[in-house]
């Protein structure tokens, strides 16, 4: 399989459980060596990684502030602006274990931004967040991409919301089943076969919807080029 991602681009990997989404991400991050093939990163490229989950023991006394200070190499002045950027300034003194699903994802996103990354790698960034919060998070990710001009590589198994928030989709099922813009992928027969016509129809409506309202659409912000 072959995939490339350029500056300022959002690429989303979707696919059923066991399709190899996380493996692909781990290979791209250098956490796992590929059995064959190679990963080429532009030299000097900084990666910001947002893991899928944090397994903090309840006995580990860690506040949001401390988490970010540790990541910022003790530069305390950067903590608040980072939290403001992701809309989580109010939890700065909370303990990590007391965050809600959405707050935790935002803090992890801020954590991934610490190193001013050229490439953001997000593993299921909306996991454990309600639907409303998911839309907000995808908006936030698009906004960060717009402001920072970084590339975003994310994994999702959510089919519909993410379609509105991505430039390129890569559908994976142990091989690249199809790829392209959200619109072209949803019409791809291989995609329909993988997820079933019902899911696709539901999603097609959604993408269609976005195309028609893109000027005032809160999600794509009028960036949907394929209209």
């Amino acid at each position, binding site marked *: 399989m072959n995939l490339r991602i350029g500056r300022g681009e959002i690429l989303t990997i979707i696919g059923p459980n066991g399709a190899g989404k996380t493996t692909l991400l781990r290979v791209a991050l250098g956490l796992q060596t590929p059995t064959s093939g190679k990963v080429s990163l532009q030299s000097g490229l900084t990666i910001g*990684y947002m893991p899928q989950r944090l397994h903090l023991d309840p006995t580990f006394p860690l506040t949001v502030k401390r988490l970010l200070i540790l990541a910022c190499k003790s530069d305390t002045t950067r903590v608040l602006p980072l939290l403001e950027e992701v809309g989580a300034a109010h939890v700065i003194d909370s303990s990590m274990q007391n965050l809600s699903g959405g707050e935790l994802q935002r803090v992890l996103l801020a954590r991934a931004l610490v190193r001013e990354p050229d490439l953001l790698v997000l593993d299921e960034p909306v996991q454990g967040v309600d639907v409303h919060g998911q839309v907000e998070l995808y908006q936030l990710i698009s906004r960060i991409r717009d402001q920072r001009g970084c590339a975003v590589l994310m994994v999702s198994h959510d089919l519909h919301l993410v379609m509105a928030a991505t430039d390129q989709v890569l559908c994976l099922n142990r091989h690249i089943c199809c790829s392209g813009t959200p619109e072209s992928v949803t019409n791809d027969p291989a995609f329909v076969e993988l997820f079933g016509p019902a899911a696709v129809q539901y999603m097609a409506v959604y993408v269609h919807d976005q195309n028609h309202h893109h000027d005032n659409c809160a999600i794509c912000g009028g960036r949907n080029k394929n209209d």
Partner: protein
Amino acid sequence: MIDDFLLRALLGGIGVALVAGPFGSFVVWRRLAYFGDTLSHSALLGVALGFILHINLTVGIIVICQLLAILLFFSQQQRQLASDTMLGIFAHGALSLGLVILAFMEDVRIDLVAYLFGDILAISNSDLGWVFVGGGIAVAGLLWLWKPLLAITIHEDLARVEGIPVDRINWMFLGLIALIIAVMMKVVGMLLVTALLIIPAATARRFAASPEMMAVFASLIGSLAVCVGLYGSFQWDTPTGPTIVVAACLIFMVGFLLPKEIVLRAQKS
């Protein structure tokens, strides 16, 4: 005047408790309690090794603990057995093997109870040296590894992506744990070493707002348990190691039952 042996016991006990605080905190955060138990269960093998090679018994214990730590590190790479099953096999296998080997050595008679439960009142000046030199090296090493270890405790893969040499740091950490367990044995014995690691740390949790606070509080709480335990053991003529652990448990219960306002005030201090 305080007796010489009592003073040595107090010094040794407090020294061990001070070392145990920060290490115990990491053991609790990273859920390594069973790992520590497994290392300490191998101590009798180290004693046997010491007799066979005619070397200092503490050195024998340190060597065996280090070897077992390496073995455990590799055994965690396999996926066939759950890690607690693996640890159980090593812990009980090492304990039994140690007892069997010692039984074969007919000219060796050891005080088994002293190894199992500690013999702090018989602590010698050279034992004290082990506690303070060995423990001091271990704490210095831990301070050096502190930040990367915190990063690994938060998320191992995240630390790896950001260029922290995770495997090397885990190696060094396990080596330090093996060292302090060998050193702590003298005070509370192999069966109770983990107790002195985890009980003060668990007690400190409610009062701590940061990892560093928890480590310091754990050291102080452990020292208190040593003082109370020594006093109790002297007063009622009970075995010292277990009395220290009972004292630690009592302090844990008091801390657990303290009202929330007092706890919050301690966090802000």
